[in-house]
């Protein structure tokens, strides 16, 4: 009787531990990685990874006394597909996942221009996600900002 109770309980816990994060990842809980992957799949383009970005991010964090941290950049240099603003916005919002809110969206039919800025409160910090498409170049940036420290750094 006890075994009958235990097995479903363990199975359900395993489901929650394994399946939920997997669904979360599939549903777009992974920030910039998920967005970049989705763009690559949707528009058949390859993102250029910036070498030593982790080091640059570390240096930026030290230089700004924690004002800027977790800088992640992806660059699409030959983005020659026409991007539908509504579709791009929907995809980014979906892939960024919960907690991200769109602050600014700018779209122009002329010259294939799109700009999206999403933000997510992270305690005292604020996560920012920026996507900018200009002609055939697209840049995607994710960064975590501490306004107090960054303001001090800028003030200096």
């Amino acid at each position, binding site marked *: 009787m006890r075994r009958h109770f235990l097995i*479903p309980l363990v*199975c*359900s816990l395993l489901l929650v531990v394994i*399946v*939920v994060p997997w669904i979360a990842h599939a549903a777009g809980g992974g920030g910039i990685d998920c967005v970049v992957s989705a763009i690559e799949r949707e528009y058949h383009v390859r993102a250029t990874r910036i070498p030593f970005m982790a080091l640059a991010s570390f240096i930026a964090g030290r230089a700004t006394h924690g004002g800027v941290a977790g800088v992640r950049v992806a660059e699409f240099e030959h983005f020659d597909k026409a991007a539908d603003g509504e579709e791009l916005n929907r995809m980014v919002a979906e892939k960024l996942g919960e907690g991200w809110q769109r*602050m600014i969206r700018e779209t122009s*039919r002329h010259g294939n221009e799109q700009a999206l800025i999403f933000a997510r409160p992270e305690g005292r910090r604020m996560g920012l996600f920026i996507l900018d498409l200009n002609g055939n170049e697209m840049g995607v940036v994710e960064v975590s900002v501490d*306004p107090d420290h960054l303001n001090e750094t800028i003030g200096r």
Partner: protein
Amino acid sequence: MKEKMIGLIVGALALAGSAFAQNAPSPLMLPPQVEKELAARAANVTEVTLNKDMLGFASKFMNDNDKDQAQVNQLIQGLDGIYVRDYEFDKEGEYSMDDIEKLRQAIETPEWTPMVRDRERKGAEMTDVMVKSVNGETKGMFILSAEPKELAIVLILGNIRLDQLGQLGGLGGLGALGSVDSNVRAEEKAKEAQKKAEEKAKEAQKAAEKANEAQQKAQDAGKDTQ
């Protein structure tokens, strides 16, 4: 056992699904169909959505030692959100009066009262300003500005001081609010100019009276000598 497992899987999936609740909808409740059609027809679309968290974030970049920025900071902290939609069109006639009416109806609830309704060029340009008043305090402002090639919608929620509103023009995408401020300033300047004109008129009247008196005295003096 099989049914139990299926039930558990379904339960776990439902649990996971509930974790992905979508963000709260924007308070700028425009008719989705109209919004979609406007966006499809517009050459450029700008959307700014700043809720209280975002405004709080923006306010941290204000320097409190600077008088102007301190005032803006104070103003921002009283706000609950700023929402902007701006549509620029390549040619005239890309939106209809029906679209405008639908947009206006979206906000026309009893708590909103029209403050300004301006029509120019036979209806080609119009500005509607509505305010939300609660116990005599302004808690929101809705601006709908339509030009032949541009349509702008601004919703500001929270405690609003109209005289400080133009200072928000410094925030990204809110440059249009500068015109509200400039209108207020223009009105103030016009009032000052009117006051000055009235003062000048009074001075001129006094001078005329003095001239009359002098003339009268001169005439009297002339009569005396005769």
